[in-house]
């Protein structure tokens, strides 16, 4: 029997998308391979050499550390930085969105700090404060600004009618804030989390290059470069990409799930 593609069948649509993604990745590896052969240098290994180094990394680890402990070392710093940003940026964003005066007062300070690339803080925090706290603070800076901006925006964008409705139903100022403003800012908050996680993950890799105590992916990358272990370097780049995709996917999925649950798709 001939297979016939049906646009209205969700499994068919899903299959089609998977096929396209698969072909895209095949094409990517193919181009990489060709470029690598054309370049003909040790610095740019082929996908096959990278794959071997990737397997080798997971079998033997690097610098007396297992691959999983290296990955976990980076992830734990990342999670700590993220939680710190969440705890500070969310309440601050809610208040800044709520009070116009406070917002006008704090905005200049934020605008002065925002253009500084989070990575620029890495040497300052790591050499200036502490090798173990420094990278966390760099991640914190990376996640903090997108999160803060989105939460402020979320509170400001609130439908005034919902506030009026809650007032006519007898909600106090505090209740208007907790029961109307906060929930209606949640989808924006999740958007901030999504953007922030992407930036944060870039920060951790960069920050670790400065930190002599954290044996994470950033450290491995730098050390391998210094020792000219180019296939391993590319294997680590693949690890970084996979972890980055996983973080953003989790964020994207939870954003959609929460928006759906709150009826605000």
């Amino acid at each position, binding site marked *: 029997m001939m297979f016939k593609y049906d646009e209205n069948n969700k499994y068919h649509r899903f299959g089609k998308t998977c096929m396209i993604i698969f072909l895209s990745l095949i094409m990517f590896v193919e181009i990489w391979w060709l470029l690598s052969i054309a370049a003909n240098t040790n610095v740019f290994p082929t996908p096959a050499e990278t794959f071997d180094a990737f397997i080798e990394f997971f079998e033997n680890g690097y610098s007396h550390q297992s691959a999983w402990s290296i990955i976990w070392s980076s992830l734990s710093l990342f999670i700590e930085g993220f939680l710190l940003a969440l705890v500070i940026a969310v309440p601050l964003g809610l208040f800044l969105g709520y009070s116009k005066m406070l917002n006008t007062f704090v905005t200049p300070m934020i605008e002065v700090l925002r253009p500084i690339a989070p990575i620029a803080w890495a040497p300052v925090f790591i050499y200036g404060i502490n090798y173990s706290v420094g990278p966390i603070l760099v991640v914190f800076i990376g996640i903090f600004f997108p999160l803060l901006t989105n939460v402020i925006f979320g509170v400001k964008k609130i439908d005034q009618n919902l506030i009026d*409705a809650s007032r006519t*139903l*007898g909600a106090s100022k505090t209740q208007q804030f907790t029961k109307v403003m906060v929930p209606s800012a949640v989808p924006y908050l999740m958007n901030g989390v999504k953007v922030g996680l992407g930036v944060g993950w870039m920060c951790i890799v960069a920050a670790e290059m400065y930190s002599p105590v954290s044996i994470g992916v950033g450290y491995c990358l730098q050390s391998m470069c210094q020792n000219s272990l180019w296939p391993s370097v590319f294997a680590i780049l693949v690890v970084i990409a996979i972890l980055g995709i996983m973080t953003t996917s989790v964020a994207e999925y939870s954003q959609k799930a929460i928006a759906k649950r*709150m*009826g605000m798709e």
Partner: protein
Amino acid sequence: MSDETSQTISNIKEGEEFIVIDGIRKVYRKDEQETVAIDRIDLKINKGELVSIVGPSGCGKTTILRMIAGLLEPTEGTITIAGKQCTEPGPDRGMVFQDFALFPWRSVRRNVEFGLEVNGVPKEERRERAEKYIELVGLGDFKNAKIHELSGGMKQRVGIARAMVNHPDVILMDEPFGALDAQTRNIMQAQLSNILEKTEQTVIFITHSVDEALFLSDRVVILSKRPSTIKEIIEVPWPRPRDRSAPEFTAQRKKILEELEKENVMFTK
């Protein structure tokens, strides 16, 4: 209808003078510019009455309602309800919004419970009272539904249940059926008329539709164009349910439409 659902907060008897709007004037100021939205409104509304306010668009109907709700302050004049001057929103006045203004993250039941929740009613009682009103507006099967799953007419029935569950003395309705299609609108009007027949609640109803005003109200207040004043107040003595095709109904509708037409001509000139 049980006794409990028809309770209201004040102890003024039906038919007694209840809401007094005295010399209301509303001026919007922005920088040096002044816009007089409402020139002068005096109106007395009795307990249990249903009064509609109609007028040309932009005449400040909604402004009047929002001042009664306590969401806006009049520039001059006072509004008293049951002898108490109203300056801020209170549980004695419930409001129904044109665009429903329901909380999308709450289910139907939790939307209706909102007023009880913020006023500290215990959970069990809250649920029981909310469900009673959800039944009353005919949404019993949808009490756990999300707001985006409902049609426009169903959404507004949630809005009505949410306003009524607090047992307010007054229900303020701001073009509640304005966003609905004509057929749903007629059904909603008949149902609202039915629900209100059984309660002591006083209703102030803003509408664009003269037909709707005549179908529902005890009195119709016609406003002039901006800056608004009351142009005429028409008593509607006919028993309910009313027949839209009755000769006196169509005659009265024609008369009011002609009045409004004059305002609109002047307004657009």
